[in-house]
């Protein structure tokens, strides 16, 4: 049986690892939700690597239709061939092109299938896939063929909760909400990227990082990837922890909006004032 233990380059919480294994054991898709930059997409990469399986990624866009994931019947090509007589057009099979889902089902070995950002698509999209995900099979009427997964793929679905997913779809899945990592876990994550980083610098930088995240008024909160960029800049710039203590260098790598930078810089001067003034207060 497959048991996912995690990989070296991906720090995973115990809860999430348990849930990954539950989803593998129960053969249900795992829906991963959470703030941007909490490593939802990387999880699938890590699982594929950890279990030594091939990864298929299906990126969902706002125009993606469920059918595209299963197969495409290239009628235009067939029409063209019919006119020029290059191929045997009675053989419809050659005009059926498997989509990502179809590819994963048809494969001989077990795969990891990542359906990335499923909430980007139309609201009806997940519902169209209900049966296919449930039974891991679908029927192609053109060739009177049924594609059935020999080995049910490990399905990881990520969502940014832009749209609510329909209940019947959710009922068939395992759900995990990735919380933003706390300081301890974050230290581990940073260590994966920078094994040699100075402890004091990291402490100080993280203190500042979480302080910035406390601001409720930020338009975009800095996430893990921004922290990594920032640390990279600090290391390359040869900034010492004392400088980080005094001010926040390279603020632009953490915050991407001018308004956000203004807010942080303004309150950065009166260090402790942010607590009362910046938060939305419950006045009643």
């Amino acid at each position: 049986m497959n048991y996912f233990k995690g990989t070296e380059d991906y720090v995973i919480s115990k809860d999430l690892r348990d849930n990954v294994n539950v989803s593998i054991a129960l053969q249900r898709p795992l829906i991963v939700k959470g703030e941007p930059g909490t490593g939802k997409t990387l999880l699938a990469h890590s699982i594929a690597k950890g279990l030594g399986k091939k990864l298929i990624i299906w990126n969902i866009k706002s125009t993606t239709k469920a059918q595209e994931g299963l197969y495409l019947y290239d009628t235009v090509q067939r029409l063209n061939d019919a006119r020029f007589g290059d191929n045997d057009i009675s053989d419809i099979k050659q005009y059926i092109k498997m989509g990502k889902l179809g590819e994963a089902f048809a494969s001989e070995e077990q795969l990891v299938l990542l359906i990335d950002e499923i909430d980007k698509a139309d609201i009806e999209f997940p519902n169209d896939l209900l049966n296919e995900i449930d039974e891991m099979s679908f029927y192609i009427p053109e060739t009177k063929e049924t594609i059935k997964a020999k080995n049910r793929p490990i399905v990881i679905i990520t969502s940014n909760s832009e749209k609510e997913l329909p209940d019947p779809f959710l009922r068939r899945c395992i759900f995990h909400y990735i919380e933003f990592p706390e300081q301890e876990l974050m230290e581990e994550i940073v260590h994966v990227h920078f094994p040699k980083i100075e402890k004091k610098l990291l402490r100080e930088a993280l203190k500042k990082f979480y302080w910035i995240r406390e601001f409720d008024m930020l338009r975009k909160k800095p996430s893990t990837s921004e922290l990594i960029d920032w640390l990279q800049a600090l290391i390359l710039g040869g900034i010492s922890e004392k400088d980080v203590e005094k001010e926040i260098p390279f603020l632009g790598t953490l915050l991407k909006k001018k308004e956000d930078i203004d807010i942080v810089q303004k309150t950065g001067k009166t260090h402790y004032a942010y607590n009362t003034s910046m938060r939305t207060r419950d006045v009643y």
Partner: protein
Amino acid sequence: MFINFFFNLKSRGVPVSLHEWITLHYALTMNLNDSSLTSFYNIARAILVKNEIFFDRYDMAFLDTFGGIETTDEMLEQILAGLKKVKELHLSEEEKKQIEQLNLDEVLKNFEEQLKQGHYKNHVGGNKAIGTGGRSTQGAWGYNPAGIRIGQGESRHRSAVQIAEKRTFRNYSSDITLDTRQMRVALSHLRSLLPIGTGEKLDLKKTIDETCKNAGEIELVWQTKEKKSSKVMLMMDVGGSMTPFSELVERLFSAASSQISKFKHFYFHNCFYQDLWTDMERNQSIATMEMIKSEDSDYKVIIVGDAEMAPSELTWVNGAIDYWYHNDTPGVVWMQRIKEKFTDVIWVNPLPKRNWQYVHSIRMVRDIFPMFELTLDGLDEGVKFLMTGKCGLYNKK
């Protein structure tokens, strides 16, 4: 016995289906939770709860069902962690004999006792907790008499009941008032007001036409069909008691305005009269009558305000809160006019619903407009009402 948990979840409004409940039992029969309550807490949540806004209610249901239960999770973890550090055992023959004589209950009891006394907290080197010479149960149970650390590599995992007690997910709950963190989610609830996107369709007739003209060379003609988006109008109370909410609401809708092509917004203070302001500072205004005349009646109107004012502001001529402002028509009449003009109007109130009945003016406004709380749930209901004309609270027909 733990079917109670299912009903506890149900009674707290977590949407759990039998399907998921059975899935959980599959997981339990496969012992995916390693017989541990902490893992059970986590796994059951993953299987039963599909939205983080219900995590808090799940925590409460979990506390209700399993609150009094004693677990050995923590102890087990510490023992295991301690055992991992044992590299080799130096046991004499005599000690090995002692081990065989011990029964497990006794060992556990002893261990637990010492755990309670805090012997393991800072134990480096042999003291009386971990026996010297292998006499104590710990020594006999395989801890190196020279002194093994137990429970010092701090465990980040807490027992399930403690986790549930912490209720870290309270903020995700959908019935609390919106804060900025949740604005994004709230916006997604307004998505049903947004255009659904374009659809592409093969225009068969034109394709045949073009192909014929092209001397048989296939020429595909696609037609795009854009689905209609809603028109949204926001009217917002600013100033006075609304000040704490104004920026919040403003940003919520300014984000929405970038996605809704037909988006209008106006401001008022407490109640609207013959003028509506077009900026937040209330410097520029247009006549309300003009607005009512010129705008289409199919705008979906969302009015945001606490509706908390003196009843006179609604009912009196010259009742406006601003002393220098003279209105010859009472506010309540203007409200009626807005209501008659637009087919779909809702009033969204940032005050908690439980306070509404104590404020006279809110009751009066509620008589005119359907009122919803400015929470995720309330906004959801409100948008549903705007789109379909009915929801759990109100039904137009």
